[in-house]
């Protein structure tokens, strides 16, 4: 039940991206991207607004097709996988979309239950129990029968996380998790992400430009440079800050602070 087990030859690589080029039609967004997301990483995809962070995430979860290059989950080629393999890979992933993206005609419990109904043999009563537990994990105990429109934006986001965790996926993707959250909720979400990683061993991929999050939770990262249209740096965010010579990245990691000093 914990997603797929990446038994690749490379040491515990969960996702390997090779030579990836992303484009909308003939308009290239990023090219020649190569990086590895290891099991247990909290992997940060960072970059300025409009640099293609969210587009990269959409490629990783199969919503967009690469113009060139490959994405491997373990040793399975995700880009060339057939429908059954794709579904199997996707069943091991959970995604928290920017706005939560809860299915609006369903209650929170039904949102979570839909996945359990489809992919497990649990009885309706058991499904409800699991759904209640997932909601409790994100601090929404007792909100099972609320519709998404009846709760606040921050709560929708947490409910979206509960749904992403429904099947105990091996890897969780977060698209700008702290956007629209107040600083305290954002910090609590960061703590929740670390808790999940530590207790369930979930690999986490976060698209963000929130510096506080990047330094608190990131164990590895890539920086997308919109001008050069490729990855200009990768490594643990704190090390990048200490050692990078790249003025773009330095400026990003210090909120432009180094430019003025």
């Amino acid at each position, binding site marked *: 039940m914990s997603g797929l087990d990446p038994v690749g030859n490379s040491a515990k690589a969960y996702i390997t991206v090779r030579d990836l080029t992303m484009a909308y039609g003939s308009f290239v967004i990023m090219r020649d991207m190569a990086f590895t997301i290891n099991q247990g990483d909290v992997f940060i995809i960072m970059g300025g607004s409009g640099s293609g962070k969210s587009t990269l995430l959409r490629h990783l979860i199969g919503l967009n097709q690469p113009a060139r290059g490959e994405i491997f989950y373990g040793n399975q080629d995700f880009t060339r996988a057939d429908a059954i393999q794709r579904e199997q890979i*996707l069943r091991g992933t959970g995604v928290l979309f920017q706005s939560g*993206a*809860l*299915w*609006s*005609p369903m209650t929170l419990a039904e949102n979570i239950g839909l996945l359990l109904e*489809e*992919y497990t043999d649990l009885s309706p009563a058991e499904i409800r129990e699991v759904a209640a537990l997932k909601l409790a994990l994100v601090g929404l105990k007792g909100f099972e029968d609320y519709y998404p429109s009846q709760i606040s934006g921050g709560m929708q986001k947490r409910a979206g996380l509960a749904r992403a965790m429904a099947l105990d996926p091996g890897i969780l993707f977060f698209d700008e998790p702290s956007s629209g959250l107040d600083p305290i909720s954002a910090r609590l979400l960061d703590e929740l992400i670390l808790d999940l990683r530590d207790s369930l061993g979930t690999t986490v991929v976060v698209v963000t430009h929130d510096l506080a999050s990047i330094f608190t939770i990131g164990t590895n990262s890539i920086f997308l440079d919109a001008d050069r249209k490729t990855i200009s740096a990768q490594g643990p965010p704190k090390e990048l800050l200490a050692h990078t010579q790249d003025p773009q990245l330095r400026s990003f990691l210090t909120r432009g602070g180094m430019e003025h000093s």
Partner: protein
Amino acid sequence: MNQVSFERVDNDILLIRFAGRWQLSGGAASSGAIEREMQAFPSLARVAFDARDLGDWDSSILTVLARVSDLCRQRHVALDPDGLPAGIHRLLDLAEAVPERVGARKAVRKAPVLERIGTGAIGVADSVTAMLDFLGHMTVTFVRLFGMKARYRASDLWLLIQQCGAQALPIVTLVTFLVGVILAFVGAVQLKQFGAQIYVANLVGIAMTREMGAMMTAILMAGRTGAAFAAQLGTMKVTQEIDALTTAGFSPMEFLVLPRVIALVLMMPLLCLYADFMGIAGGAAIGVGTLHLSWTTYVQQTADAVTLTDTAGGVFKSSVYGVLVALAGCLRGLQSGNSSAAVGDAATSAVVTGIVAIIVACGIFSVVFYVLGI
């Protein structure tokens, strides 16, 4: 009121004096006078300001100053902002802090005719391809449905059946009853001349069952339900709910489109029968009320005129119209862009596509039924 005056100092400095209130609400301030003054001063080397008599100000004066600053740059004239209030000075610096990005300004270019025709043709080809792609997916989905492999929520289907069925009754009642009334009046005026009022029953009965019942219901459903489908799916696209379905391994075709098509296909024949009945009732009301026929005569005449083939043909057509309306709504919804305006366009386009498809299908049916002698 805003006032501006000029003074030439030392033969190469232009001193611009601002006075009075410079506010957007006080009327437009034009930089024309300053521009003319600068042009009439060939030995100009420096522009300075005097704002001691300047009253309240807002963006109105800033717009003029930004223009002056542009002019100075073009003519390589020095600009001395010291005479301006500190606030204006800071805002001007702010406006000029980031230089205009090369290529940021949109080029206004009128494409040549051939290019526009070409772009249009490519657009049509693309949309036909997208439609065929959608129909192909839909066919595959139906094959999966009959193989019991399609996944959708039964509760969604029941809700949709309620929305496309029972909830549509009031509007269908109103419109089709009135269509019956209108047909009866049109017929009555002509048939009265021959003393053949009784044939109003034939006219209304056959028109409603063969054509109007199915078509009026279909057009109502295109406006009511097709638009709703497009708006629902379009909004789900904007809120990333469709992405969430896809990444959870559900096909939007099975999960969203299929139940909508099934609901309309099941409900349209029922609505059509009901519409036939209401239309005939409308005709009867006129026949009895103004043509002085008796209820029994009218009903008997209708029963003699209308055949089972007429009714069955109309009902069959209505379920085809149901498929067209549902597909048009879902296609436009799934094609919607990611903004509120795009969702509105999708709903409009769903209604237009739906009605065009209904009329085209109606034409085809007429020819086929004529050839088959139905």
